[in-house]
């Protein structure tokens, strides 16, 4: 894994894989999910909340979702951030 990049989770039923790249400018969130028509705003918010809690101002986040609930999206995002930071 290159510097400042990390991911967490799996693309499997009811789970989500969140990939984070901190080596960018600004915040960009990409949601890849069959459920985006119904839950895109929720998924984005979950990611944004965690970015904010972790004090991340610059990140590209790719969310490959298979119907994960928000708590899992938050958790995977948090772990991905930590891993990107090398923690």
């Amino acid at each position, binding site marked *: 894994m290159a510097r400042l990049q990390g991911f967490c*989770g799996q693309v499997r*039923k009811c*789970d989500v894989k969140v990939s984070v790249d901190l080596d960018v400018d600004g915040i960009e969130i990409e949601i890849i999910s069959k459920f985006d028509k119904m839950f895109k705003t929720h998924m984005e918010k979950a990611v944004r909340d965690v970015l904010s809690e972790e004090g991340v101002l610059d990140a590209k986040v790719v969310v490959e979702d298979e119907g*994960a*609930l928000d*708590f*899992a999206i938050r*958790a995977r995002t*948090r772990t991905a951030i930590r891993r990107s930071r090398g923690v």
Partner: protein
Amino acid sequence: MEKIMRSMLFCPGNNPKLYYTAPCYEPDCIIFDLEDSIELSEKDAARDLLVEGMKSLDFGKVEIFVRVNAVTTPFFEEDIKAIVPAGVRNIRLPMCQSVLDVKRLDELLSATEDIHNIERGSTKIQVGIETPKGVLRTEDIAGASDRVIGISFGAEDYTASLGIDRTKKGKELLFARSMIVNVASMYGITATDTVWADINDSIGFIDEVKRTKALGFNSKSCIHPSQIELLHDALRPTQEQVGKARIILDAVVKADVEKGGVISVNGKMVDVPVITKARKVMDLYEKVKKNNHG
């Protein structure tokens, strides 16, 4: 009142779906696992998921336990520091082999509780006895902290350490089980039996539950939802047992008032151990009714 802990449903902590489906099966307890079911590279992911799950989800009447990584691992401290503030109040500590293991956990819990303004002592410990050494030291281990509310037996590692096979009849586990049950009784805490791995063999499962119940176990770790109802059924006091217990306890009440000490039921003298046992039967019966469990 003691926590009711007949069934403890085991859930690998890195599987999001289990967090909101497992409670639907109404086990008395769920154990989210951060230890053996989680590969090394995913320990952080499981921990983060557990923390988020504890913060967001409502588990209803189900009591939540977490099996953290053993004190000898680099994950142990991180686990405790993260999960206690998130709301975890019951820790299963695996591979307990000495008083020091428990004391280390006790101290870390106190420190963590203090930092987060959690009532000191409110986080409880279930010690995991899984090795011959642990078995021999059960008394000291279980007595090492006031937080200890139970002892859990793990037969897989135990038999592996002894270099023997684990069998369905479990005769090779008799010594370990007896030790645990006796120590649990001495401290007035719960003895929880090891998992039954063959989920397709429900007859064998029920047989083991009945055998270990006869030894004194009223609690068991489960690895599949189908085991929960079978377990609850097998542990339920029969109507006959409840009936007898009621008669004895009624006689106790009367005796206290009239004769002051000696009690007889149906012309027979009834002494303290019998009364204690009758109380235990009624306790279990009442607890189950109250919790509206199976």
